[in-house]
């Protein structure tokens, strides 16, 4: 019952925010001091064009998506396709060397969402569970116990 309602809320969030990952955990310090490791970001995606200053989450075929700020946009007149450059607030250099495409620009299609709000610290739970799996098992065990007990 708990799990299915959690799933419904999750799917509902995906629907409302228009993003495949409506919530992400900040994993690195490249956007400090604004976002710190462990913060949770709320994402929203729509057809509005990407503009400089927006904080976007993108994945151009890497293991983990990146959350950085757009610092350059060159949008073509005829087809509205845009070449985009991003950079972490705390990084000295832009992301050009990171992009997997040989083009050296980021395309709009790789952007999964824009960060619109955030909650500090809460994501630490998922980071701890990945770094120390034992905690994940303890939590899952506790959750399982809760389910069994509540069924009574």
């Amino acid at each position, binding site marked *: 019952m708990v799990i299915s309602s959690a799933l419904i809320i999750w799917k509902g969030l995906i629907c409302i925010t228009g993003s495949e990952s409506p919530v992400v955990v900040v994993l690195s310090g490249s956007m400090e001091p*604004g976002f710190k490791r462990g913060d949770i970001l709320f994402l929203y995606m729509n057809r509005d064009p990407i503009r*400089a200053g927006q904080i976007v989450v993108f994945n151009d075929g890497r293991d983990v998506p990146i959350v950085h*700020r757009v610092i*350059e946009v060159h949008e073509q007149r005829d087809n509205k396709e845009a*070449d985009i450059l991003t950079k972490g607030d705390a990084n000295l250099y832009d992301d050009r060397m990171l992009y997997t495409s040989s083009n050296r620009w980021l395309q709009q299609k790789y952007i999964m969402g824009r960060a619109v709000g*955030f909650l500090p610290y809460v994501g630490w739970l998922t980071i701890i569970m990945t770094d120390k799996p034992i905690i994940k098992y303890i939590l899952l065990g506790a959750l399982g116990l809760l389910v069994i007990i509540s069924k009574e």
Partner: protein
Amino acid sequence: MCVIASLSDNLNIPSPSAEIQIMNINWFQKQPKGSDEVSLTMNISADLQSLFTWNTKQVFIFVAAEYETRKNSLNQVSLWDAIIPAKERAKFWIRSSNKYRFVDHGKNLRGKEFNLTLHWHVMPKTGKMFADKIVMSGYSLPEEYI
């Protein structure tokens, strides 16, 4: 709690102001690879104190050059940015050359008219982020490389 924080942020009506002067075009050339690049020095003054609320962690600001070319309906190039960590530091004056390279997507910059926009991004302690900008127009680059 997140929602309440954002609701109170919504009640704040900010009245920011800013002014940017281009003190000097340091140099303006075509790169060996072919794109135009310019280096300039700006005087940036602003009063962004009204953006801060009890829920504001920091305000990220940046100055971008915005212009059109034949191929692109919009080009935005960030030239300079800063983080304002507290209300006391939100009224300032600074002279700086561009922190990031002003490079075109081509060779279109000679005689180019452009806007300078000061963007700000209010990052809360928790909740919704706000962003807006002031557009200042009337700037232009030299007709010839220097």
